[in-house]
């Protein structure tokens, strides 16, 4: 068993375990920490696939930012001790089954190795990916305009989110 398969199995276990904790825990805070574990595992998958930029972004944005946002959101929410209603489970179940079907289809339609990246097919690692991304961002023919529009999108998200948060906060303004 090569080191890559071992790493894949460890990461897969961590990701799935984090997901199970997220879903089954009765405490929302535990769910948030489970989600953190799961997202870290996904970052590990990106490393295995040779995309270190994506892995770092995953850790910086999702693990470091979004989960912290969730934690604050959780602290704002009074604990929900109610039993889950049948209707809620049914709706969630439909979405879960649909996602599972799509995922299984993708897994079984996949060519090449199921863990990690084929040496002759994947991107070269060692900082090459991020340089490629940077060059694509700065290329007029490629993603220069989307790069700038992304900043407008972020601006809209910031203003909108802060506006909604301020109104929901009620007092003060």
């Amino acid at each position: 068993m090569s080191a890559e398969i071992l790493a894949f199995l460890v990461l897969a276990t961590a990701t799935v375990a984090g997901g199970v904790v997220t879903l089954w825990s009765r405490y929302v805070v535990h769910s948030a920490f489970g989600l953190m574990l799961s997202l870290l595992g996904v970052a590990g998958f990106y490393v295995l696939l040779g995309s270190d930029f994506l892995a770092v972004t995953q850790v910086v944005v999702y693990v470091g930012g979004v989960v912290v946002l969730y934690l604050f959101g959780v602290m704002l929410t009074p604990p929900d001790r109610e039993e889950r209603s049948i209707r809620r489970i049914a709706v969630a179940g439909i979405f879960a089954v649909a996602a599972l079907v799509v995922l299984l289809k993708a897994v079984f339609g996949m060519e090449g190795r199921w863990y990690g990246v084929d040496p002759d097919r994947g991107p070269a690692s060692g900082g090459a990916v991020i340089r490629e991304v940077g060059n694509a961002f700065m290329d007029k023919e490629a993603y220069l305009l989307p790069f700038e529009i992304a900043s407008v999108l972020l601006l809209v998200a910031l203003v909108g989110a802060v506006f909604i948060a301020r109104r929901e906060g009620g007092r003060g303004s």
Partner: protein
Amino acid sequence: MSFDYLTIAVALVGGILFVYANMWILSLVRPNKPSDLKLSTYECGEEAFSSSWLRFDMRFYTVALIFVVFDLEIAFLFPWAVVYRSLGILAFVEGLIFVGILFLGLFYVWAKGDLDWVKAFAKGRIPEVLDGPPSREVRKGVFESGLSGGPERNGGGEEAGTS
């Protein structure tokens, strides 16, 4: 694929093991006398009178939102910074536009007072506090600002202190 990430994996596993190994070694030598009192919530020596599941102030959430947006900005600027030197003036101008647009957002939240932790102060209500005894409204505003656990908590603390 070169496995430079082995270093990270070793550091990760080592860090986790360090914590649990220490706890295990300590469990061998420490005395073990569990009691109900030791498991109760510690609240500055007072007896806990409410659940610790209290709602936090909205301001934490607003700050976290702002943080996530600028976190994403960094994620976008990182590849830009890597190729910056090789592209010269174009990269400089484009980066300036990108940061400039987001600076508008920072300016917006700053001007609207979302970055002020205690909004009541930013709105010019502080002179009331300085001139005389604070009005009920101002005190309420300060207590609810999230500096302390909320008005109930403070009130409870005072009562317990005077009795």
